[in-house]
């Protein structure tokens, strides 16, 4: 257990390569997701609160990919910090988007924490995405006055965010990472064992 605790805390145990890969997986999709951030606000403006369900899952996608590839505790959170570092200076929503995004990453780590970061299958990825979606929703619930909405709308929001996270970040993230593993670029990581099996 002590070893596990060390593994959780120590950035020192991270090889430079892992750090750079997690950072690159944050910064590049972070830039690619910028249009989604802006489109998200437009969708939300046009469709109301339920509109966020359509794209919210995409925001945790890089984190789940990083965690699935590097397989170290905290990879998703660290990736979230890197994504936020892109968003803080490049979007006017900056901090307002960055904080829920980091909270979502904490959510994505919870299911893996329960299995002590040993299982990496579709079920885990979906659970992790759903958990990220729900925690992210929790972070924006009160600032967006969602508690004042009609009950069916609230239920729709909660279910929708969970599903959006599970599909758009969990399963899509696994799909992308598996395809990446097929190319051979991830030969240094244990993802390739899963794909070959």
């Amino acid at each position, binding site marked *: 257990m002590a070893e596990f605790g060390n593994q959780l805390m120590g*950035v*020192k145990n*991270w*090889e*430079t*390569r892992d*750090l*750079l*890969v997690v*950072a*690159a*997986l*944050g*910064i*590049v999709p972070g*830039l*690619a997701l*910028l249009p989604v951030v*802006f489109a998200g*606000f437009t969708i*939300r*403006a*046009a469709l*109301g*609160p339920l509109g966020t369900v359509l794209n919210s899952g995409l925001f945790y996608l890089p984190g789940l990919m990083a965690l699935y590839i590097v397989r170290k505790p905290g990879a998703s959170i*660290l990736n979230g*910090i*890197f994504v936020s*570092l*892109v968003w*803080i*200076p*490049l*979007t*006017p*929503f*900056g*901090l*307002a988007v960055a904080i829920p995004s980091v909270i979502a990453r904490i959510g994505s780590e919870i299911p893996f924490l329960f299995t002590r970061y040993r299982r990496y299958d579709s079920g885990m990825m979906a659970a992790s995405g759903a958990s990220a979606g729900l925690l992210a929703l929790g972070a924006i619930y*009160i*600032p*967006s*006055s969602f*508690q*004042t*909405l*009609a*009950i069916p*709308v609230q239920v729709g929001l909660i279910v929708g965010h969970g599903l959006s996270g599970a599909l758009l970040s969990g399963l899509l993230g696994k799909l*992308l990472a598996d*395809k*990446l593993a097929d*190319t051979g*670029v*991830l030969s*240094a990581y244990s993802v390739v064992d899963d794909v070959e099996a």
Partner: protein
Amino acid sequence: MRVELPDQGDKGGVLQRLNPVSKLLAITPVMGLLMLVTDPYTPLAFVVIGALVTVVLDGISLVRYLRVAAPLVALAASFVFIYPFVVSGPSGTTSEILVSLGPLRVREAGLWVGAATGLRILALSVLSLLFVLTTETESFLRALVQTLSVPYKIGYSAMAAFRFAPMLQSDIERVRAAHTVRGVPDNNGLRDRLYRVRSYAIPLFVNTIRRAERTALAMDARAFGVFDDRTHYHTQSVGWRDVGFVILFWTVSAALVGTLWQLDALGTLTILR
């Protein structure tokens, strides 16, 4: 849309020369409070203060500021239009009906919640603009490492990875050229764009991961992360200017909240309700 990054080599406004951490420290308590207020007056007051501080203290041209802020105002306005239709609750059913349009009724309470929420989001964004428009990413990273003692391995990995961003453009060009050579039509319709997102994702990720691994090797070769402490080429310190700014901002904010309290304009906070 892309926010232009200020160049710190220029003269720069007062805010640009502050330590980024002090700017964060100044706005964080106010943002925390704004997340909880339920009346529209407090956010409105902070929208004005935030915009004034950014434009006056930093000397950003008003036109540029308005261009960045315009979509935010549009977003805030959308809340006023949409919330009246989706808000429920006892307060919604007893309040006065303003407009009746078939089965849809716009009630005063719904409009009130919409205005409060829209202005709250606007105020949060305006405050974050105060930081965003006046801070360069690299000086923010340096400040995180030097002032907040974030592990430098994280800070400098981020800085190294930031260098990948401009290369993304040339990567896209190259993948596109490779596709064209192999006979993929090079059109610009919506369907082609969607197709491109799908078929470019993997090659772009591959390029990025390879680049990250090469960069990591180069950094390792230069003994990155071997020692706990390190020296810095650019130093980021906390000066009297930073302390002054934080105290001034906090005082003005507290005075504002106090005044609103006196005027009975400060609604109940969400946690107290």
